[in-house]
């Protein structure tokens, strides 16, 4: 009953990576268990994201990724374990989740809700338009009328409005054309490089995630199966087979032989 323990040994633990970020963690998840009724969605999962680090969380549908995200964001309470966020985490939710009746400007401004005690200046959206200039032209458009890619951009902008230490991106590529996904990925890279913004990217598209992030976790059936530097994971036969379409093999049997 300890596939996750053995899996953790496949790759060396956090720290042995080339980009050598500061060790100060922004997200620490320890032994988190999430249950819905009697079903266990997440089973004793540990995960860290250090300041300025880009970390991917990959895995098949229903592996518990979204549950973990909700726990990190404080939207659900884990049954056991602890989640600590040092500083502020902002979420780019799965499926964008904008406020469709409100315009882009208001969607962005509401992203600064955690900073509401700091007054009107914290709600100034110019800093987002500087980073995502495409949004400036859309500022008066109702969010519900935008294309998927534009909406994802607004979701990014809204998350940035909270001045986060770490951006949690739930399904960057879902439902978007590859070109648009690539553009958004570039934005993420830039934000990380220029501002030292840490990123936790939850992706089904493992190739994209491993390409974008320096370190990755593979979540399967509620447990961390593998973790390590992205490069190492990309080279791992197991990951390649299951997630990178290396062998034309469907997700297949999992866990028991690991």
């Amino acid at each position, binding site marked *: 009953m300890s596939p996750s323990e053995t899996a953790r040994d496949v790759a060396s633990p956090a720290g042995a990576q080339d980009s050598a970020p500061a060790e100060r963690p922004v997200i620490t998840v320890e032994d988190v268990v999430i249950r819905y009724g009697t079903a266990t969605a997440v089973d004793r999962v540990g995960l860290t994201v250090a300041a300025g680090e880009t970390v991917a969380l990959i895995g098949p549908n229903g592996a518990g990724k979204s549950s973990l995200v909700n726990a990190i964001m404080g939207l659900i309470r884990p049954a056991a374990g602890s989640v600590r966020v040092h500083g502020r985490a902002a*979420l780019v939710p799965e499926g964008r989740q904008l*406020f469709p009746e409100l315009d882009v400007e208001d969607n962005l401004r509401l992203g600064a*809700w955690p900073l*509401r005690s700091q007054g009107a200046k914290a709600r100034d959206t110019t800093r987002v338009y500087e980073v995502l200039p495409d949004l400036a032209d859309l500022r008066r458009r109702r969010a519900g009328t935008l294309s998927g890619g534009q909406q994802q951009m607004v979701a990014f902008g809204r998350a940035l409005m909270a001045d986060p230490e770490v951006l949690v991106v739930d399904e960057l590529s879902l439902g978007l054309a590859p070109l648009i996904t690539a553009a958004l990925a570039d934005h993420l890279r830039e934000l990380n490089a220029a501002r030292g913004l840490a990123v936790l990217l939850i992706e089904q598209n493992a190739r994209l995630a491993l390409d974008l992030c320096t370190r990755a976790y593979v979540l399967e059936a509620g447990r961390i199966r593998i973790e390590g530097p992205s490069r190492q994971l990309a080279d791992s036969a197991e990951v390649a087979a299951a997630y990178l379409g290396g062998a034309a093999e469907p997700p297949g049997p999992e866990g028991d032989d690991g």
Partner: protein
Amino acid sequence: MSEFVQYLISGLAVGCGFALLGSGLVTIHRVTRVVNFAQGMFAVVAGLTAGSLLSAGLPHGVAEIVAVLAAGATGLLVGIAAIGRRGTSPQSALIITLGIGFLAYAIEIMIWGDNPHSFPGLGGAVDIAGAHLQKQYFLVIGAAALGFAALGLFFTRTYLGKALGACASNPYAARAVGINVTRMGLVAFTLGGMLGGVAGVLVTPLQSLSYNSDVLLITNGFAAAILGGLNRLGPAMLGGLALGVAESMVAGYYKASYQSVVALALMLAVMIWRASQHTALHEEAAR
């Protein structure tokens, strides 16, 4: 002609009350999905409180404002009972607000007895187009217009108003950006209480209120609100005004005793018409 003006203005004044009540219902429903059966009670509480404060010697203006704040506090309490406990469905919350209406009856009878109460509003009258019109009508219309303007500004110009709109638009997203949706629901209940309170203090000088006036008030407020599907303020306001005028016309030209029947029949017609536009599938999908 003079009769018509008379009925129109008095109908608009009463309709302002319905419109305010309807707006309160919409404000609460948008954020919480709860149809607040205690909405009429807020008006009763404010109207009776204002009367007591005035007879205790408080000046006009102060008494009314205190009464509206009292209604707001009542709204907050109703909200805590209706949505404070996690997992209370909107349907259960409706029954809870019904229960609180009973509790309010008990308290109101203890404080004010079971007789209708009123208090004098703005005295005097003016003659317009041959119609003899109480000044209170115009005060009601003016004050309600100010109230609506303030409400509109609140929702379109303030950050808190925007956050309430966000909760209505997408509760999950609201939580994702860190908005506490339950707390916003309580804000909505407080605001709904104050709107009901404004209706109460404005209308009480026109028609006296007793503890059980709330049933007719809530039905009229609901009739106004249902025009916009309980989610839009504009139609709720217009609906309230139209209802007030329709009732006034029926009472004036036909028979006073049929005025509420007309309003209720109108409401039924609108609801059934709206229902024929939406199937059960729509509604359950929207849940």
